[in-house]
């Protein structure tokens, strides 16, 4: 019994060490560094353009954008990305809740958008681990964006 506890603790310590190592290796980015890694304003404009090219051709998301003011949405989204990445911007758009009200967005559509964003970031050579830093900030917004599971 004692041996077992010792072994369990040893195993736990190994995991903790692994996790700590990983956490330390990625937490060294200052806020502004992230913004620059995404190519600053110009990079974000390009990513957002590519995102909308994907969204409008993706059958899972295209129906939501019929008659939508795409140019305005893109502008606001660039501002939002910029703020989330620690860039020198201000978000002047509506709240996420207001902007998505009545669209009947479900989880599958929300996740589809995440995939289309991943593709856009891939296309613009944003490293995977930095992509995840942006996605981590966007993910909780599902509560304001989706109407149903």
């Amino acid at each position, binding site marked *: 019994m004692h041996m*077992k506890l010792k072994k*369990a603790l040893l195993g736990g310590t190994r995991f903790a060490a692994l996790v700590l190592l*990983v956490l330390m290796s990625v937490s060294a980015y200052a806020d502004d560094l992230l913004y620059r890694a995404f190519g600053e304003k110009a990079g974000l404009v390009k990513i957002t353009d590519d995102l909308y090219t994907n969204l409008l051709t993706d059958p899972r998301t295209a129906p939501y954008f019929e008659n939508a003011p795409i140019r305005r949405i893109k502008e606001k989204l660039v501002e939002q990305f910029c703020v989330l990445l620690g860039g020198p911007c201000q978000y002047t758009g509506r709240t996420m809740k207001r902007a998505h009200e009545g669209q009947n967005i479900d989880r*599958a559509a929300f996740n589809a958008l995440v995939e289309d964003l*991943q593709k856009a970031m891939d296309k613009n050579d944003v490293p995977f681990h930095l992509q*995840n830093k942006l996605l981590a900030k966007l993910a*909780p917004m599902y509560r304001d964006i989706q109407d149903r599971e």
Partner: protein
Amino acid sequence: MQLRKRTYCLTLAASALISCPAVADEPTAGGKLLLTGGVSEIEGAAGGGLTPWAVIGGYGTASQLGANAHGTYVRTQNFALSTYGVSAGVANRVEFSLARQTFDTRDAGAKLGLGSDFKFNQDIIGMKVRLFGDAVLDQDTWLPQLAAGIQFKHNEQGDVVNAVGAASNSGTDFYLSATKLLLAQSVLLNGTLRFTKANQFGLLGFGGDKSNAYHAEFEASAAYMLSKSLAIGGEYRTKPDNLSFAREQNAYDAFVAWAPTKYVSLTAAYVALGDIATFKNQRGAYLSLQVGF
């Protein structure tokens, strides 16, 4: 509406196995993100290799059905274990799984007096319910996704497991799993608390001459995503030690999981299972293929 049509088609395809070209042509029909559904653990539930996670298997979301089939092969110095099974996730809430395990004693069978290549067969019926939380999306809180699960296990070699001291050839495991993706760090963590009487996962029966009580066991997984489709990690699982004829030890593994698409994942691991049925320090390779629908 596009989304609704696909759900209907998926349900049909899964229930009647008819082809569904609209789905086949769409590379990203499922509603969840790559690798976030885990793979199939050794007992058939969605999770890591050795332990179930709180995630609901398959890439289906609330209005969708997701299903997986898997085959797993583990080979140590003296034994081999093969498992195959199916699982279905319903509405990202409930997961059902069926698995069949064959534990091959190979040459060890003769030394144990069972005969060379003696095999133990075990069927496992599993069910898991997501209680709360979203492991992937709730990135602004430490609250994990929590699920409760149950695994009914039935070992077909009742006479043999009784002869080695097991109290029963069938048993039920209960577990609670908490899973959290730390997306900004690209790390996934899972902890599982399991109440079990199983000897060597149930392959040597349930309960024994040393103890026939439920034991609380702890299981942990940690994974680091190298890319969208590639993750590495390790797992640890404690186990009861109920039989006096052979001590049972804890298990751990180090794995690489690769999901070239949403529908296929391949997991390779090094597993260390400790002593099994008097054979010391069993270690070896673990290989698992999962195909999703």
